């Protein structure tokens, strides 16, 4: 029995993708999933720190269009060597802002192969599949795969707790009965 060549798809549909690096590793994401690319420096004043959420890969949140986005450190998400992220992808229809090292290039893919079933861990959520580009295999990330519903619940709770503490501090009275500054 010989391994049969992959059957050719009826019509090759090209999809624009962005190749980017996180922790030295190469990934792809559909450009249609990326709403905006921002530099880390431009977010310096807008990002609020999140502590004690239990989700180590998220340290900051952004308020945007009346919703809270969570900045996911890509190296921690993929358990890669930590590198200083320089860019953030704001992803469409998710509450994820992804911290990455750099954009490699924009290109297109004509074939996306489902992740082989041999992969049975959380990577099944992380990736839409694999694509071969220039004799290299690149995982195509799923925008929904960075934060699970449970993680979002914990992060929302941490943000709510922080907000409640800030409100309490703002409303606290001094021993003389005056509002605390």
């Amino acid at each position, binding site marked *: 029995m010989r*391994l049969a060549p992959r059957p050719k798809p009826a019509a090759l549909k090209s999809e624009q993708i962005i190749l980017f690096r996180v922790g030295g590793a190469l990934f792809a994401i559909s450009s249609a999933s990326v709403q905006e690319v921002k530099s880390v420096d431009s977010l310096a004043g807008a990002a609020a720190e999140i502590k004690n959420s239990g989700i180590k890969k998220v340290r900051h949140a952004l308020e945007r269009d009346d919703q809270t986005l969570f900045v996911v450190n890509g190296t921690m998400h993929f358990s890669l060597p930590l590198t200083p992220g320089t860019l953030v992808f704001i992803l469409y229809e998710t509450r994820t802002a992804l911290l990455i090292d750099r954009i490699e290039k924009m290109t297109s893919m004509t074939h996306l192969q489902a992740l082989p*079933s*041999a*992969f*049975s861990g959380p*990577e099944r959520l992380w990736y839409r599949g694999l694509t071969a580009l220039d*004799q290299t295999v690149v*995982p195509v990330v799923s925008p929904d795969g960075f934060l699970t519903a449970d993680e979002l619940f914990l992060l929302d709770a941490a943000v709510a707790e922080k907000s409640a503490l800030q409100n309490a501090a703002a409303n606290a009275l001094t021993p003389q009965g005056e509002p605390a500054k």
Partner: protein
Amino acid sequence: MTSASQLELPSELQQELQSVVLLRLGDRRFAIAANQISELVAPSRIFRFPHRSSNVEGVILRRGRIVPVCEVAERLLGKRILDRRFYLIALRRYASQSEWIALPVTGECELINAEITAPGEDDAPHVSGWISHDGNVIEVLNVVALTTPQPSNDEARS
């Protein structure tokens, strides 16, 4: 004329020769049913990306397909083998479909015909039978059991 099945021969006499592929891992040999094997290919570049499937090393590109490389030496020999010469491309059945996987092997493979003896109760799940060849008794491997991730110690305790 009476057929063999009508005679109800004892099971040991009903065994027929089956084609198996002999493979080498380190200094040991194993066998896999030939109908589960596609081809033996020379080592090609292995592509790695983040994942948490401990028995998968990465993927190779073969005839336009992306094929996962499944590490089996650790389960069979108790240690990883760095010296590998070929990938044996095998068909692995999953719940609803079959997919090709690449098994790293350290020597050339051989196609032989042999009688397969059924596994014993004490045999590991990855043993689907035994053959006798060249004076050696050789395990016939169950590819599904061999490449199913084993629960970690923590999971097993819970």
